[in-house]
């Protein structure tokens, strides 16, 4: 197991066969541009304020020490579970400043709630699972709502609600509009 840059791939081994078939599409979506991978949702830039930057290798080591556990080759019985699993480890001061929620962030929130209402999502656990599959560098650099929307796209493509091609067409149209207005 591992949470290096191939985190998404190694964790994909636990996916259902149906989902594994869709892996190329998921990886494709994950490869969309670094800062705003799902710009079909929003024309505004993402919030650039990310100061959460734990050293995951060091965290993994200290987590194992702390819990007295070892990671075995089967991937079970070890810690931590990924870049999200950092409870109790040094991560610097907590940013307590208030910040506005951007319009596109509310849109993502609304889409998630609509997807739940319409039964396209069964539980927040589906989205949490996708977020925990993000590669560590994505987990650290994406903002809160960027993580949610990336996971939402994975789930909706997985379930055939929207196609990868349709997402890419829409993203490309928005990119071109942004270029034209720049």
């Amino acid at each position, binding site marked *: 197991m591992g949470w290096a840059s191939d985190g998404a791939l190694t964790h994909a081994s636990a996916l259902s066969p149906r989902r594994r078939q869709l892996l190329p599409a998921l990886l494709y979506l994950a490869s969309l541009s670094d800062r705003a991978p799902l710009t079909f949702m929003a024309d505004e830039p993402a919030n650039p304020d990310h100061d959460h930057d734990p050293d995951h290798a060091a965290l993994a080591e200290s987590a194992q020490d702390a819990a007295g556990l070892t990671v075995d080759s089967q991937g079970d019985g070890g810690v931590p579970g990924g870049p999200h699993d950092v409870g*109790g480890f040094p991560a610097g001061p907590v940013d307590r400043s208030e910040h506005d929620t951007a319009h596109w962030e509310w849109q993502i929130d609304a889409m998630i709630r609509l997807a739940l209402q319409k039964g396209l999502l069964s539980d927040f*656990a589906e989205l949490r*699972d996708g977020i925990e599959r993000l590669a560590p560098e994505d987990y650290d650099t994406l903002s809160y709502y960027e993580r949610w929307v990336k996971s939402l796209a994975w789930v909706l493509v997985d379930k055939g609600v929207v196609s990868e091609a349709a997402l890419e067409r829409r993203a490309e149209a928005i990119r071109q509009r942004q270029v034209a207005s720049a």
Partner: protein
Amino acid sequence: MSIPRYAVGQRVRIAARLPQVHHRVPAYAKGRIGRVERVCGLHGEPERFIRGDGLPKQRIYRVRLQQNELWHPYEGPDEDVLDIEIFEHWLEPAE
């Protein structure tokens, strides 16, 4: 499933597993021993759900852990505790 396997006050150990799906048990709690503080309700269990087995309801317990056993060194009072909600299948009886 509807009859709780553990009772309030019982000592339980939180399992030390790492399923490669979302499972709601943080690393710092794995392998720790605590007491059942209360028996909570049922909730859909994420692990089997994400593997495509539906969303089976599973009992949740609030487990009380001693802070000074979780963190080393812990500089707060000895009586400090951390309560964490854990699905039943993550608990084992502890003596």
